[in-house]
């Protein structure tokens, strides 16, 4: 049942006729995992608030989204490393709140620019999708 915990695969408790459609979309997204750009955007946004380790990033995303979004743990680290290679984030070893060595990631200047750009295009996209959905 791991699949249903992934982003979008979250159980939907609405009872109208869209139920099945949403479920279908949810399954589709779950199977594709989180689209790469989306996960990147979420990570960048999370790190924009403060430097964070991988665990912190996944917890923060979960908390802020009110348990709606849960990053599939397995794909978090490849994404972090990819972003680091691209120079959008950089990492440093630090000490965590419970006194353990942890690897902290922070946003770089190019990362910040990238975040702005991706947020903008995400908003454009979601506005467009919203307006189509509102037509009904």
């Amino acid at each position, binding site marked *: 049942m*791991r699949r249903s915990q992934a982003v979008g695969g979250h159980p939907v408790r609405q009872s109208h006729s869209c139920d099945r459609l949403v479920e279908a979309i949810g399954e589709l997204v779950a199977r594709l995992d989180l689209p790469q750009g989306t996960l990147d955007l979420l990570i960048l946004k999370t790190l924009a608030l403060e430097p964070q*380790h*991988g*665990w912190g990033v*996944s917890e923060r995303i979960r908390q802020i989204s009110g348990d709606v979004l849960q990053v*599939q*743990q*397995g*794909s978090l*680290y*490849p*994404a972090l*490393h*990819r972003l*680091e*290679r*691209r*120079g959008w984030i950089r990492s440093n*070893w630090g000490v*965590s709140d419970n006194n*353990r*060595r*942890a*690897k902290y990631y922070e946003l770089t200047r*190019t990362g910040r620019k990238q975040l702005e750009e991706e947020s903008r295009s995400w908003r454009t996209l979601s506005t467009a999708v919203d307006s189509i959905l509102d037509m009904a």
Partner: protein
Amino acid sequence: MSERNLLGDLRYRVRALFQRRLLEDDLDAELQFHLARLTEKHIHSGMAPAEASRRARLELGRLDQIKDECRQSWGVAWIDALLRDFRFAIARMGRHPRSAAVTGISLALGITANTLMFSVFMAAQNPTHFDRIDELVQIYESDSRGLRSHVSAPNYRAMKRLQQSLAAIAAYRTRAFSISDHLRHPELVDGVLVGPDLFGVLGSRPVLGRTFDESEFNVGGSGAVIVSHDFWRSRLAARDDVLGQPLTIDGNSHAIVGVMPSGFRFPFASDVWLPWTRLSEESSRHTRNLRVAGRLSAGVPAQGAEAELGGILAHAEHDRSAFLMPLAEALTGGDRMRTVISLLLVTAGLLLLVVCLNVSSIRSADFVSRQRETATYFALGASRAQVVQRFLTESVLVALAGGAAGVVGAHWSIRHITAQFESEIPYWMEIRLDEAVLAYAVGLSVLVGIVSGLQPALRSSRTPLKALQEGQSGSRSTSNLLKLVVAVQIAAAVVLLAGTKTAIDGLRNLQDRDLGFSLDGTLATSVPLLSDRFASGESQRTAAAQLIESALSLPGVNRAAAINPMPMRDNWNTTLVDLPVSRSGSGGTEQVRVLDYRCTPNYFSVTQVRLLAGESFRRTGDTTDRREAVVNRKLARFLWGANPLAAIGRSLKVAGQSYMVIGVVEDSYHDPRREPPRALYRRLADVPARRLSLLLDADLPAEALERPLAAAVQKSDPTLAISSLMSMRSLLSDYLSVSRASTQVLAAVSVVALILAMAGIYGMSMSLVKGQARELAIRRALGSSDGGAVRLVLKQTTQLTAGGVLAGTALTVPVIGLLRSGFYGIAEYPAMSFATAWLAVAATSLAAATSAAYRAVQAEPAEGLSR
């Protein structure tokens, strides 16, 4: 991505490659931290620690998979894969050394040949020592029939005065010079009389000193000379202070004004360049012996210049026109060289193609036998691309190993060939393994690896289902092509081996043959009469007599003689004469072409040429009214029948002068590679010559006599120099050196052909076994031994070999015909050569087929049945 980002990205990847340990440890620690926090979280929510830890692991997913994905994020996954395939390929090569060796050696040979040819091609494309050689032309005159010649002095002056299409034009003439200094005896050296501005035209500058200035071209000027780098090193001990030092050349003093760069020998093998002071005095319209070089003005095409110069010549002399040849071509005797190099390049390319086919067939058989391995890859989730990549990596790796060996082979061949053919390779061709050639070799190796591995890799990486559907049917046409290629290789090996054996026998024949004169105990040297004082026949006559006398004055010298032309040294074509002969019976006269020797009376006794009838020249016969001649057996038989006695007392007319035949001698060779010619001997006293060779019957070896002889000759005339003194045997050996070197090359090529044929048969036999795996397996299941299986392969191989040998033998006949023109005395059907070739090819074929068959049979005993 911005430039800075790109750099950062690259830095990250490099770190991932070279600080892998660190990165892996980091990753591990990072994931462990995550796992610990997740477990804590579950414990907080009330789970038992063991259950919490299990749950955490489950949620995070498989650690090694995550790590793998992270590694892909580092951007070095493909390098990792390549390295893994690389290690795997090396391990595989270790397990199958025979296949790896056969393919590696074939590839090495193919790449050696191609690298070598490419370096020769590059050397021919980029002549050294000349500035912008494509602008340089050699200028010839041509008559109404299109016959080409060098230029007459008046015509040269007309062109120089009137032409506008050339930036510069200069004349020169090659000849030998006698050089001495206060330390040494005169020495003969090839050199050039240089017209004004020749070095300017060529764009060549000395490394030391300068070129000639204008005053040095004036008659009676202070003689100047420019020397080659070789001459400077060997004769002048590479001293820095040679400029201004005097050299005595043909009896006159010349000051050294320059030393040319290493390797510069314009036009052919010159060591000295002298200003041509008497160029302006040359006036003969009919002596066309000025070599003329020119540099085209920028933007003027050669045709334009040719038309303009042709117009000038036509105006100066009736029916003359100009012919321009690129200088690079003129230096090597026309475009023959380019044709030869192109041919060799194409041949090497074809050879590589054959190698590719052979290697491809060996790989095919190899990969097919690895179907289990392939199936395992697929089962483990590998994609077809990954399997193909693995096979290709292996194939490219073997090709690169072969290529590395090939580069070593090419390096070695270049050294060997440049040493063997030193005098044949023009000085402006610098054959070497430079960056371009190396890059070519590497590129070619990779290409060959891909080409020879792609088809087998694609075929053997078909998914099992696909393989089942297609079965073996697709391979039939390929295998027929393969058989044809192998048959052609066998045929080529037969031709080359038979040819090599014939050439080797021919050479041995030449070395052991009775040439008609004594090889041991007879020493020879040449003494050209170069100085102007030897212009008259009388002075030449006196000089010849003095030379003989000074040689005889040396202790250890028993007899001495002089001759022109010298057997085994002087080109006979220049001394053929047409005798007008009227035969008894028929009324008219006919022309008989004979070799015209002029010698001193005791030539026959010194060289031990046998007298058959009559007598030799009398020693004291000074110029008398009655001139005497000796003929060889061939000429005597041609003119007067088989009995030599019939020739004695007959008379001959040469150039209007009557001669009486006083003796007949045995035929002797002039060029040992050709049949002895009809020969006429006259006395040097009657018909003097300027180019003399001295022959000594001596008790001392050449090395001991050379210095005293040089001293004695110089004493008789200070301008005279001798070439190095050699026994007739070393003269013969020198004469045959190019033939010997060519035979070595031929032998090397035959060995290559044999190895390739072997690889071809090996690969084909392996595919044959694979193709009949099922049949063989059934036979063995029914109790037939491995021997039966091997016999089945051998039967097919033998048929193919027989076909190839038959075709090769048929092709050998014309090749032997070609060789016969180079080595006189080779039989028309040399049985031993054929037998050797057949035996070698048959043995090779048998060995390769047996070895391949056994290897294939033993590889996977049960596999055949399971298919």
